[in-house]
């Protein structure tokens, strides 16, 4: 059986599992699954930059946080706004931030780029912390899930966790599809060109700066979308949505899962979330284990979990 065949079958099985999840999983597991979905999108957005464009963005949490805060504020001040529009606007806000930050950052390379984006995120964190009149600082903003209006079905209450699950599944699936298709377009190819050989690409007429800013902002869009979904799910936003732990968690997910393949970060998100969930039930120092696993991955299995399959292939 060819690899593509295996992938296709796996895809169908996983899709079926996801679609039927609420019917065979207890509610608490559905909660976990929602969290996995949100972070899968988030991790994917990080890897769009790192795995495909070669840009290590440590400040990815900034966009997640912006998406989260914007959505929370929308829900607070404009609760009648259609749900999908609200999500879109939040993601768009993160997209704009991506352009602004990208504009200032992309001229730097490698570790320096990572540093700058991280610094920008910390700036936004401080703003979120100090600007209490808007963000309520570390006390955060509590929101209520709006109702979701679907043309044929009428009003759907998102207090029902199953409805929420399907909504988030749908949005995440769209986001993932967007990322997947994007990589198959000429623009997606441009981003990969930049990583593969930036000099040659310049000489072929590729504008390095513009290309990087474009993909940076797209990544911001997806991360912001994930952030807004996070608020929808938790009905709460606070500075933890934009602090360095948020960035680090998603970097961890992508690395552990594997940055060389499209679904690597998704697997990483699933693994991390499940692992953390399991560990934290009997130790409050689960960070240590996850961190150790992360370091081990970076040092000994740089391809991540997805590359384990390669270890069993005959040597190439």
């Amino acid at each position, binding site marked *: 059986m060819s690899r593509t065949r295996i992938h296709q079958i796996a895809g169908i099985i996983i899709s079926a599992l996801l679609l039927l999840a609420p019917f065979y999983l207890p509610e608490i597991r559905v909660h976990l699954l929602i969290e996995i979905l949100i972070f899968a999108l988030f991790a994917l957005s990080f890897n769009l930059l790192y795995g495909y464009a070669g840009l290590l963005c440590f400040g990815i949490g900034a966009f997640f946080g912006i998406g989260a805060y914007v959505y929370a504020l929308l829900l607070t001040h404009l609760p009648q706004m259609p749900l999908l529009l609200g999500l879109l606007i939040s993601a768009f806000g993160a997209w704009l931030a991506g352009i602004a930050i990208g504009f200032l950052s992309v001229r730097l390379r*490698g570790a*320096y780029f990572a540093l700058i984006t991280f*610094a920008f995120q910390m700036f936004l964190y401080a703003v979120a912390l*100090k600007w209490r009149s808007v963000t309520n600082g570390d006390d955060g903003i509590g929101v209520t899930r709006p109702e979701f209006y679907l043309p044929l079905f009428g009003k759907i209450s998102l207090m029902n966790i199953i409805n929420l699950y399907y909504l988030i599944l749908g949005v995440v699936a769209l986001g993932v599809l967007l990322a997947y298709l994007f990589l198959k377009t000429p623009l997606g190819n441009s981003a990969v060109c930049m990583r593969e050989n930036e000099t040659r690409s310049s000489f072929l007429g590729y504008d390095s700066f513009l290309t990087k800013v474009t993909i940076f902002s797209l990544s911001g869009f997806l991360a912001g979308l994930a952030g807004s979904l996070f608020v929808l799910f938790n009905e709460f936003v606070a500075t933890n949505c934009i602090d360095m732990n948020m960035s680090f968690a998603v970097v961890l997910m992508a690395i552990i899962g594997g940055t060389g393949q499209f679904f690597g970060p998704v697997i990483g998100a699933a693994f991390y979330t499940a692992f953390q969930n399991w560990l934290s039930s009997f130790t409050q120092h689960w960070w*240590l284990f996850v*961190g*150790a696993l992360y370091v081990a991955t970076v040092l000994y299995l740089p391809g991540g979990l997805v590359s384990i399959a390669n270890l069993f292939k005959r040597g190439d």
Partner: protein
Amino acid sequence: MGTSIEIIIIQAMHGFVYGLLLFMVASGLTLVLGMMGVLNIAHIAFYMLGAYIAYSITTYTGSFWLSLVASPIIVGALSIIIERIFLKKTYKAGHALQILLTFGLYFIFAELVRLIWGTSPFRLAPPELLSGGITLLGKTFPIYRLFIIGFSVVIFIAMILILMRTRIGIIIRAAVYDTDMVEALGNNIPLYFIGVFAAGAFLAAVAGVVAAPLLTIFSGMGDQVLLDCFVVIIVGGFGSLLGAFIASLMLGQLQSFGIMWIPELAIVFQFLLMALVLIIRPTGLMGEEI
């Protein structure tokens, strides 16, 4: 809000204190960066560990001075172990891997600290000799801060002398400029590097010990310093000690006066500075082309 000369001078001195401490931490970071192109985020952990270990030593032995000597030595030794076990593997692998790794190490250290010392913050009192204040320009200025200034200046003079006058120092400076050439001339660069690395960690720990009575000791104490160090390196230029020095002092003053004028948004100044530098001179004030 009186902005009389006295207040300005006092604020400036406060800013000076933080600036000097910041430079003590940032110097190791930028030197290692310039010499081997390694951005070691875990370096800030040495600062944090310096403070925590000093706290333990002082609590058990009652002597702050002992911790001032012992803590940095312990941290310095630890740093060598870290370098040999973890960092060594990443030199060939490129910046991304290094930064990913050291970032992870930083978080692990923060967690380890919580594991060993618990999550409650600590306060460390300055030694008898240095507590209290003296009257300066009509205001009371803590003696301890004066000590920090004096102590830091002594350390920096020592640093300058070593780097400028000794053979080791010259080699190190040359290595920051062109590692390959220096190695080709027969110098054992890896050995020098370990030395610089450990010295940097030592200094960061000293800063941690010295800062402990000034600030609260808690597992997030490195976060602000981490950020500040980044800004210092960006503004000062990668690998430039002079740049880091200027940037540290600038940042110290910005913090001090920023807090005085607009406490909530003091951090804005910091970032304005950084953004400005990025736009006008992306390689930093004293940096070379990357």
